[in-house]
């Protein structure tokens, strides 16, 4: 097992290098660069000499291999450098946003698991009854409704409800506070985006739980468990659920990794300063260093999440043993 873990960690390196090569070259295929945008972006005339100076300062005039080596080396020594757009250290720019995105991703996952596993289970047990239909409509709605729209509805709903019942309208705070400083204030802000994204996320996982469980319930060993006279509760919880969770864990893992960089619109709706927004801005600004750093972080999250999912598999199913 330890050998496997070491192997998997080592295998992350080529994956990361591959991603680094791709992002580095694709970024440079985009016409224009950060200096043009910064100095002449608003359509003003800019002195070509000034642009040239800017390029030299940022290292954009260095030969491509040198730039690439710089980028990779910076990653190895964990020095991500400065943003080409703002000039501030990237670790500073990413730090808080990463914390926020990570927290939202975790909370959305939590919401999704909390909704999907019980609902999927009940829907499978009560297959083709009205309960099943209600759950299925609920989960299809989750897939169909964009989470940013749901986010808008949540904010509107909160405003209207608080206006009506408390007299003064209230909406989630806009300023981010660390959960360590002010857990309540932090929750008041982040619970809503987590619910909005967690609901869509749960929809896929609910359907996955339902279909996996339905399949497992037809297995011979479930009949064996019934023939033993066990309680239905025990049959579902002990005999069926563990067997049906493999595909659900896969979905949850992929979604989690996606949430780390893909929550662009939802972040806008709730006015969150997360990685998604930073991502879009950095691409629009041709901020090479920032985009590269963000892509690498998201890739690392994906790779790591996959690794955790694989470890989960082994825990759920003893037939899976990695060597």
């Amino acid at each position, binding site marked *: 097992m330890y050998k496997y873990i070491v192997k998997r960690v080592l295998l992350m390196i080529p994956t990361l290098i591959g991603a680094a090569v791709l992002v580095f070259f694709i970024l440079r295929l985009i016409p224009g660069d950060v200096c043009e945008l910064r100095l002449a972006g608003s359509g003003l005339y800019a002195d070509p000499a000034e642009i040239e100076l800017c390029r030299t300062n940022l290292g954009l005039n260095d030969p491509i291999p040198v730039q690439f080596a710089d980028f990779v080396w910076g990653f190895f020594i964990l020095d991500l450098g400065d943003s080409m757009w703002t000039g501030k250290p990237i670790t500073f720019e990413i730090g808080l946003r990463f914390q926020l995105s990570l927290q939202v991703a975790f909370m959305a996952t939590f919401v999704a698991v909390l909704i999907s596993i019980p609902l999927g289970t009940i829907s499978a047990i009560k297959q083709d009854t009205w309960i099943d239909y209600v759950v299925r409509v609920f989960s299809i709605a989750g897939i169909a409704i964009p989470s940013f729209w749901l986010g808008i509805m949540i904010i509107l709903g909160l405003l209207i409800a608080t206006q009506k019942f408390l007299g003064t309208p209230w909406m989630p705070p806009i300023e981010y506070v660390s959960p360590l400083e002010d857990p309540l204030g932090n929750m008041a802000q982040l619970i809503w985006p987590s619910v909005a994204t967690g609901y869509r996320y749960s929809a896929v996982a609910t359907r996955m739980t339902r279909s996996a469980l339905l399949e497992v319930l037809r297995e*011979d*060993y479930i009949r*064996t468990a019934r023939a033993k006279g066990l309680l239905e509760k025990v049959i579902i919880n002990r005999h069926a659920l563990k067997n049906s969770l493999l595909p659900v864990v896969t979905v949850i893992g992929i979604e989690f990794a996606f949430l780390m960089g893909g929550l662009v619109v939802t972040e806008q709706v709730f006015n969150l300063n997360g990685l998604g927004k930073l991502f879009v801005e950095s691409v629009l600004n041709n901020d090479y260093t920032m985009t590269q750093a963000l892509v690498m972080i998201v890739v690392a999250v994906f790779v790591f999440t996959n690794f955790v999912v694989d470890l989960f598999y082994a825990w759920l*199913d003893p037939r899976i043993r990695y060597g």
Partner: protein
Amino acid sequence: MPPLLEIDNLYTQFFTSAGTVRAVDGISYVVEEGETVAIVGESGCGKSVSALSILRLIPDPPGRIVEGSIRFMGRELLQLSDEEIRHVRGREIAMVFQEPMTSLNPVLTIGRQLTETLTHHLDMDDDAARARALELLDLVGISDPDRRLGQYPHHLSGGMRQRVMIAMALCCEPKLIIADEPTTALDVTIQAQILELMKELTRNMGVALIIITHNLGVVARYADRVNVMYAGKIIERGTALDIYHSPAHPYTLALLRSVPRMDQPRKEKLDPVEGQPPDLTTLDEGCPFRPRCRYVVDRCAEENPLLEPVSEGHLSACWEKDRLRGPLKEAS
């Protein structure tokens, strides 16, 4: 004293989009205490469904027991509440299934699967259940039981898994074990071991056994009484001796002829049962075996024969049963 198990006029049907499948179509039989009864028939004749019906394990929908009675130790199983039937399952009547590969839960340890029945039915604590599980594994001939308890089904061979299934069935010292093709999925050499084990254990513990099989060799060796099923009905019943030496139904006869035998010359061709088993959704008035029967007479199309005695304890559902028992024997 009433028999241990008495099945009377049992009908189990499956309501599918293709029509109503009459899987068990009015069967009756009796199992006495400590006795081994075989139910024989080809695939799809309703023998497994009849067994699952006893413990009410028919998946509903689409299946349902529509009529009949199953009395076990004086109690009507079909009248019990879900709660009550659960106390019968595993505790008084246990089952051994066909596929040991898929009938054990792959993600739970052997120990867990053995002890859960004990803690559930007998209120044992974990230590007592573990001790009993060790004892049971030893009883069914599994070496190193202490280590096995912590293993998963995929660590065990097919034969071993079937031994575990038997140990599970014996857990609560039931009165009756229903074995649904217990050896079909196993190697021939292992089959004999498993059957010997089941015979020995049931005899020693005074447990009655219903053994469902399509293997006539199994029947000859282990069963006290045999019920031959065809198209959801019992078409012949008798002792193993009756069935083997003087079959009184063309289907039984055909089955016996289709089995290769060591005491016949190799050159001799096997004589398979021609045709297909009937579609259980479209049964008519007549005898369901008649399209495949070599002794068919006009009456077969009009009326399905009832199970009637040919001699003491030997019954057959065939209009021509008396003709069969005569000269045909020599032909076989």
